[in-house]
Each structure stands twice: as structure tokens, then as C-alpha cells.
């Protein structure tokens, strides 16, 4: 079987009319130009990979300067496929993809889109979470200390109550990896928050609302769970990772620094996800159980916060899930494992100092 094409010898750009024969061990090319005729034999192993051919098939052979042939005949491509099935120069993963046709390509594109979406929805947070969990504790503590100091600057610290709160925390069995430093600040706001590394800030407003120390224990259990499980660090890592993704996509690197600063100053406004809050609630309850305190303390805390005036509650509730739901979940948990409780005179004593 022979085909007609052009032969280029690698020395001149002149295309010489040629007859190309497909032999078992290679191609034989007989060319003729200006009465100078010749013949070359191409061994299969020397033919370079040939991809992306259309109506024209282009084959190249040998070392620099490469010889080449160009054949405008669809039959040539098919004949090559038949004669040299599996030969190295015809192998191309890309060509096989191109042969998938429209629906195959569309499917791949959709798959890729799905992969991208999945990466953004699950991959990025999961990665950020891992990073946050592996963040060294000493760095976390240094970072937390700076934030804590910075935040207290805007408030009047009630030294007496702060001492009482720290005594109260010492008397509690908390099972924590972090040493805890707490402060009570003078503010009518009904709020409390945890800072990474073992720092807690409680507003007087929330203490004034409480009637039993078990409520305080529950609140502390909740905040300490945020610290122990690195909730704010994880939330920060997550939002930072999204900003990093955005800055990679849009080529803005300076945005990363801005986000770091923003996150630090707006830490207390971080939107914990509902699951993180519920996890903290659960662990707050667990703290009451471990200390053999009345488990109703956490329900009372929730109800107390729920009944308070809308305005005052806003600060604590806005970043938290629906209180009704939380109470329901907690009551179910208490119902699952009810246990007898004792009075704890030591905690009671510290609590009285706090509410004086």
C-alpha cells in the first residue's frame, strides 16, 4: 500500500513529492525533485510521537535535523493505525481523549468542575483544620496572650472578681491541655468569650444574670471546650485558607496580611459554626457531670440567656445557634444519662465572691 505525500529532508524547506510505502519494519519513502530522486527507510523506533493530526498527517524521523513527511489523506492515518497498532509513535493519551468525542469531553469537564467544587467545599476546610490542629501549642499560647492583652485594654478589669473566677476554675476538674487564665471585665453586656491558648474573658453582665454557680460551671465548660478543641484557631485557619485561595486565584497576595490582622481584631465576632457551638455545649455538660454538679445548670444558663431582653442578649446569641434548639438537645443528653449530683461548698464559696 503506498500513499502520496511530501518529504522534507531536514536540510531544505522544499517539499519533495514522495511515495510512501508501509512496510512491516518501517516506512519506505521514495522521493523525486528536480530530477534528483532518492529513497529513505524509516525504522519504526526512530519515528517521533505523532499527535494532534487532522486531515494532514505529519511524521518526523531521526535525530536533528529531523526528516519529515506530510500526507494529506485520511486513509494514511487509518492505514498507519492498522499496520502499526501499538507502535510507540502512534501512542498518545491525549489523542485517545480527543477521540472520546463531545459527550466524553463534556463529562470530563463536569467531573473537573465537581472536583473543584468539592475541593473548595470540603478539601480546603479539611486542610485548614489539619493545619490548625498541628499548630504548636506554644505558638498558640503566645498568640493568645497577645490577643488577650490587646482585648483587655478596651475594658476595665474587675480584679476582685477575676481572682474569684480563677479560684473557681482551679477548684473545677477541667481536664484541659492548657493552663487557664480568666478575667472578669466591667460591662453590662451579656457575653463571654474564649481566646486560643487558654484565655477566657467574662463580662459582669452575664454573671449578674446567673443565680446558681452551676450555670457558671456550664458557661466555663462551654468556653473551655472552644479552647481545648481550638475552635477559634480552626475558624481562623478556615477563613484564612479561603482568602488565600481567593488571592491565589485573583493574584492578590497582600490580601493575606490584611486578613490576618482583621481576624485578630475581630476574633470575638467570629462566627462559630453551629456544630462547633453544639460541641462546646456538650462538653459544658460533660464538665458538670465530671464535677458531679447539677446538670440542669446548663439548661438554666440557656434559659436565663433566652429570657433576657433581646438587646442585651444580642452579643452572645448572634454568633450562636437558636437557644430553643440548644436546650432541646441538652435536655435529651441529660435524659440519656442522668446522674445524682452533690453540693460543692468550695465552688459555692468562690461563686459567692463573684456575685457579691
Amino acid at each position: 500500500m503506498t500513499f502520496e505525500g511530501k518529504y522534507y529532508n531536514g536540510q531544505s524547506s522544499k517539499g519533495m513529492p514522495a511515495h510512501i510505502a508501509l512496510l512491516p519494519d518501517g516506512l519506505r519513502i521514495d522521493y523525486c525533485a528536480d530530477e534528483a530522486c532518492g529513497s529513505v527507510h524509516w525504522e519504526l523506533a526512530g519515528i517521533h510521537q505523532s499527535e494532534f493530526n487532522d486531515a494532514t498527517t505529519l511524521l518526523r524521523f531521526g535525530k536533528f535535523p529531523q526528516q519529515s513527511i506530510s500526507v494529506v489523506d485520511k486513509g494514511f492515518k487509518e492505514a498507519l493505525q492498522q499496520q502499526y497498532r501499538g507502535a510507540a509513535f502512534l501512542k498518545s493519551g491525549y489523542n485517545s481523549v480527543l477521540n472520546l468525542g463531545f459527550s466524553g469531553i463534556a463529562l470530563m469537564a463536569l467531573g473537573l468542575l465537581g472536583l473543584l467544587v468539592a475541593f473548595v467545599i470540603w478539601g480546603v476546610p479539611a486542610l485548614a483544620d489539619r493545619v490548625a490542629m498541628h499548630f504548636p501549642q506554644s505558638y498558640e499560647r503566645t498568640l493568645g496572650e497577645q490577643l488577650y492583652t490587646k482585648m483587655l485594654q478596651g475594658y476595665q478589669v474587675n480584679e476582685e472578681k477575676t481572682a474569684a473566677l480563677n479560684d473557681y476554675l482551679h477548684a473545677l476538674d477541667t481536664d484541659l491541655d492548657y493552663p487557664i487564665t480568666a478575667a472578669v471585665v466591667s460591662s453590662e453586656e451579656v457575653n463571654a468569650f474564649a481566646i486560643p491558648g487558654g484565655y477566657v474573658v467574662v463580662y459582669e453582665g452575664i454573671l449578674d444574670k446567673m443565680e446558681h454557680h452551676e450555670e457558671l460551671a456550664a458557661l466555663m465548660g462551654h468556653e473551655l471546650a472552644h479552647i481545648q478543641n481550638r475552635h477559634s484557631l480552626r475558624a481562623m485557619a478556615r477563613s484564612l485558607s479561603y482568602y488565600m485561595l481567593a488571592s491565589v486565584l485573583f493574584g492578590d497576595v497582600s490580601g493575606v496580611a490584611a486578613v490576618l490582622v482583621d481576624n485578630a481584631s475581630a476574633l470575638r465576632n467570629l462566627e462559630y459554626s453551629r456544630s462547633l457551638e453544639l460541641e462546646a455545649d456538650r462538653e459544658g455538660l460533660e464538665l458538670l457531670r465530671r464535677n458531679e454538679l447539677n446538670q440542669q445548670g446548663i439548661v438554666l444558663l440557656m434559659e436565663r440567656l433566652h429570657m433576657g431582653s433581646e438587646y442585651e442578649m444580642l452579643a452572645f446569641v448572634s454568633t450562636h445557634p437558636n437557644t430553643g434548639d440548644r436546650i432541646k438537645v441538652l435536655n435529651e443528653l441529660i435524659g440519656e444519662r442522668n446522674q445524682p449530683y452533690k453540693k460543692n461548698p468550695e465552688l459555692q464559696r468562690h461563686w459567692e465572691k463573684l456575685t457579691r
Partner: protein
Amino acid sequence: MHGLCYFFQSFLTYFQAFMTTTLLEKEKQTTHFSFTGRGSEYFAIEIVNLLLTVFTLGLYYPWAKAKSMQYLYRKTELAGTPFVFHGTGKEMFIGFIKGVGAFILLYAVLMYGVISEDLSTLLITYAVFILGFLALIPVALHGMMRYRTSRTSWRGIHLGYRGELSDMYSTYLIGFFLTILTFGIYGSWFVVKLRKQMIDNVRFGNASLRYVGDGGDLFLIHLKGYFLSIFTLGIYLFWYTKNLLHFYVNNIVVLQEDGSYSRLQCDVSGWDVLKLTVGNILIVVFTLGLGIPLTTTRTMSLIMNNTVMRGDFDADALVQTEEAYDSATYESMTDMMDIGVI
């Protein structure tokens, strides 16, 4: 050196005018460029590239880049014969590592200055950073020209780049500082000088290229483009782009050994640029960026299918003049340093 340049330039302009008249007497011969690539094909290739790049955490990128170049070259034809890109992923990987390595080194120096919290150290490292950056650009341009031309062939005839790195440096540094001293006005002349340095040193077998654009013309294009774009609330931008395209392409001349010459001519209109740009933006927006390969083939189609070579181009008369590009001369540090932006 400038005087020589000027002399050469005016000689060329004269030469050109002379040739044009002789050409008009004969029948002007037109050799067509064309782009036969299809959006769907290129899209599929880029999807595979993207998937492999993602799964290899970016390591596949140079191979992906080589593959898409091979496709785009294979689908770009001159006188009915496609170009061939001989670059491989491995070469591009090495080039990429060299380029990225240099940048990382510079950033490391800068970071050291920032961390030291010492003002004089910071200033010194900042100076090193800026100077290093400046020093890197000519090397990158030179490396890119050498790499890209040596890996390109047409009908088996390789392109080549004969420019010296030292000339690139002097052109670049003189132009850069003159541009700063003239508050940017010299920029147009600088761009033209740089293009001359790059294009005039390109060999296409025994033919060579010349860039005959004039800095003054470019300056006028910018001046006109700037003010008209403002007056027309940006609509003129498409015609401005068209003018720039014409200036860059239509001033390229191909000289063959027997003295015959031909000139590139791009007939894209402002209206074409408008349609292309608006279409491309819509494609990118509505495919969330996945359709970018389609915009590449659209752009290639518009430019290549509207570009011809007019004059006495003898497609059969090119003779191989390049050395084998895998010889030792191509092993130096600056070669193959391809940042891979273009």
C-alpha cells in the same frame, strides 16, 4: 552604537521603500498563515492538563505547558504547512525550576531583610531584590528567545536566536533608565529597541527577521489611544489594541538570502477585536473560567487567519542553518530559563 542603529534603521526604511516599489511592479505574492485548531480539541487537552496538574500537585505543569504548545504550534500553518514545537516537559521543567529558583532566592533575600528588623539591612536587601529583579529580566528574555526559537521548526527548518546576552543587557538597562529619566516617554522607543534586539536576531533557516517599527509611531499610537479611549469612554480601546497589534506584527520583515523580502501583514480590524474581547469575556464568565482554552483558540484563529506574508517569500528556499539544539552550547545556565509566562 546608537548612531549605527539609526543608520541601519534608515537604511532599512530606504531599502523597504525601494523594495515596495519593485514589488508593486511585479505581482505581490501572498503567503497565508492559518490556525486550524478547534476550541473543543484544545479544551479537551487543557482539561486533561488541568486534571493531571491538580493530581500531581502542580508537578505536571511543565509537561502540560509543553503539550498545549505542541498542539497550538501543530495547528498554526504557514503556506499550508504546520509549525512543530520540539520542546519537552522535561526541558520546560528544568527551565521552570531555574526561573522559579531565581525568584525564590530573591524573595528569600528580601525576607531576610524584613525579618532582621534592622533598617540598613532592610534597605540593602531591598536594593539587592530590586536590582536582582532588574538583572533577571534580560536573562529571562534572552533565555526565552533562545529556547522558543530553537525548539520551533517548519518544514524541518529550525528557527534560531543569535542575540548576545550582553547586547540584551545594554539595550535593556539603557532603555530602562532612559524611560525613568524621561518619566516614561522614552518607553515607546524602549519597547521598539527591545523588539528589535529580540526579532532582528531571529534566524529562520537561512532567512532572517527584521523589526522595522519606529518608536515615534508607537508613541503616537499610545498618545492617540490614551486620549481617544478616555473621550469615547473606553470604546476606542479595541481600536487601540488593533493598532498595537498592527504595529507589532506588520513591522516584521522576513529577509531571504537572495535579497528578496516579505512583510507580515495583519488585517484584524478594531471591530474584530471588539467582538473577540466581548466574546472571550462572556465565555470566561459563563464557564467560571473553564472556557479559557476556547478564548485562546478564538484569539489564535482571529490573528492567524487574518495574517499573511506579502512579498517574495519563497517557501521552498529555506535551508537548515541551526546547530542541533541538544548540543553542549545549549547547556549554560541562562538557556532554557523560561519563566513560562508567554
